[in-house]
């Protein structure tokens, strides 16, 4: 469920990057303050572990499908919230760079969706469930509940970020219905897997879990502080995003009008109705559209300007020319480089 660069707008990406950077800066401060330096290599190697554990698929009985570890919760449990968050951040950076999972612009979104919820909202839940001491049952339920919640929040964020970026036409309701149930299932798998590994570690090396749970100053006070931080961030983000969400379509229309030369100002709904009416018409009268092919510039009245959306004849012709030119230049450069190398060798 990594957000991709292509799905977000620069403003959403930038805002989320700023928010995540804030959390990261705070975590680094915390980690540096009360950290024995032993943790740095531990974080690094644990990050590598989560990365490789994600590759170990196991068969889910009776379903014919397979599952694997996601890792955010496990990192929090093993390393504590701050170190866990930073480790998640570096994993995501490597994934963005090497695998095209997510991307550099969407990096902030991904760190937020996969790091903040697990380490700062769900992990305290895990601590709460296991506060009377660890046993297999408490570890299981703690891991299960926190994984479910973290994944639901993460998935919901993906929905919001995508919608605010205005890159998809998927209605909010449908999108949510698509994402949340899938991530409920994924959350269950994640919970089980996290619980299995955490229990194993607790049995083999109890000190790892216990030190983390005791050593991290996520007391009641810190939880409050974290919640305040998250709340403030949420308000800020929500505010800027909703501003953007309300601004953006207008901006789009405005630019459409400008290029299309139409002065009529309509609300979104009106346009939509008008468009669907026209659409019906077009469906009945297929000839209607051919008028635009006669002349590059004439456009059917009432239909959105083809020019603007890049489908005018010159747009299409130009697009192809661009492609051909670009590739031609590419080959030309390679050709000359090769030639030069050959002559150099001689």
């Amino acid at each position, binding site marked *: 469920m990594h957000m*991709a*660069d*292509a*799905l*977000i707008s*620069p403003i959403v990406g930038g805002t989320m990057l700023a928010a995540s950077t804030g959390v*990261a800066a705070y975590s680094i401060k915390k*980690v*540096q303050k009360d950290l024995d330096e032993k943790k*740095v290599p*531990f*974080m*690094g*190697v644990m*990050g*590598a572990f989560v990365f*490789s*554990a994600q590759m*170990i698929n*196991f*068969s889910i*009985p009776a379903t014919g499908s397979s599952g694997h570890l996601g890792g955010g919760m496990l990192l929090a449990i093993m390393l504590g919230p701050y170190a866990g968050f*930073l480790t998640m*951040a*570096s994993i995501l950076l*490597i994934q963005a760079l*090497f*695998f*095209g999972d997510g*991307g550099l*612009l969407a990096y902030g979104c991904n760190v937020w969706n996969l790091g903040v919820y697990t380490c700062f909202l769900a992990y305290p839940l895990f601590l709460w469930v296991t506060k009377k001491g660890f046993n297999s049952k408490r570890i299981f339920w703690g891991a299960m509940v926190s994984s479910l919640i973290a994944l639901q929040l993460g998935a919901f964020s993906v929905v919001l970020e995508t919608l605010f970026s205005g*890159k998809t*036409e998927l209605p909010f309701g*449908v999108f949510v219905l698509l994402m949340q149930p899938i991530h409920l299932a994924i959350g269950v798998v994640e919970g089980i897997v996290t619980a*299995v*590994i955490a*229990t*194993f570690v607790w049995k083999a090396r109890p000190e*790892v879990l216990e030190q983390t749970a005791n050593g991290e100053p996520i007391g009641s006070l810190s939880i409050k502080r974290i919640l305040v931080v998250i709340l403030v961030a949420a308000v800020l983000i929500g505010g800027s995003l909703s501003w953007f969400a309300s601004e953006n379509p207008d901006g789009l229309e405005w*630019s459409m009008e400008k290029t299309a030369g139409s002065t009529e100002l309509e609300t979104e709904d009106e346009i939509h109705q008008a468009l*669907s009416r026209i659409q019906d018409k*077009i*469906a009945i009268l297929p000839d209607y559209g051919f008028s*635009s*092919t006669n002349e*590059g510039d004439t456009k059917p009245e009432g*239909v959105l300007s083809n020019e603007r959306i890049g*489908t*005018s004849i*010159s*747009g*299409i012709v*130009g*697009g192809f*020319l*661009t492609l051909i030119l*670009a590739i031609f230049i*590419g080959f*030309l*450069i390679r050709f000359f480089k090769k030639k030069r190398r050959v002559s150099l060798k001689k």
Partner: protein
Amino acid sequence: MSKINNSLYNIRLLDDLAQKESVVHKLHPLIKLLTTLVYLIVVVSFEKYDISALLPLIFYPVLLFSISELPVIPILKRVLFAMPFIIGIGIWNPLFDTQIIIVAGIHIARGWLAFFSLVLKCIFTVTASILLIASTGMGPLSHALRMLKVPKIFILQLTLTYRYLSVLMEEVSKMMRAHSLRAPQQKGIHPAIWGCFCGQLILRTFDRAKRVYDAMSLRGFHGEYPAGNLVKPKVSDFVYFISWSVFFILIRIYNLSDLMGDLFIEVIK
């Protein structure tokens, strides 16, 4: 199994490519990072239905490919691996955005434009990111991050994660190989021993973390690592950055495809 080998191969490949010595490889890593960021922002800032205006941005990856002499096919393959999620979300556009428009005389739902534009953006952004790492490498990139004042502790941890990524993945792939040899008839790892399998791996991970820490502390590590001098970008680096940025912004403002198309039609007439 094949997935992990694939990932290992991918990391190895990009790492190998970063060792090449082209003009692009020699540029300052920070400059390349910033150029990539400007490119990404410009690509993503195009509106939903823009295709023709977006197309000229293809010059960036194409020129990078040819100047840096990076192999096209393997990198594009990586790009394809990143597509499914985008396609999964983008494919809903034609279903919900059914406004019909006419493109070259063909009636199609406007959503298709949005879909293709999204796919195009995805190809551009992912290609640009992979080209960045393939022409820079992880070491120099951490150098760039340090210049951006990213704290050293994060960079050290990033470096370690990256370093042990291939070590652990190799270990996993060998364990899975051993498993498949002694359970030849079975596909995947049985859930009953999966936990043990991962647990074993994590315990080894702990041990390794301890040994790595030991090795570091034997060489004087105390939580703070002075990572050497930073190299400043040269004038030519700035020229590279500025010329690309200007190009991107021009393309953002003027629809180059339209202009070229107009010109072409004029000439034909």
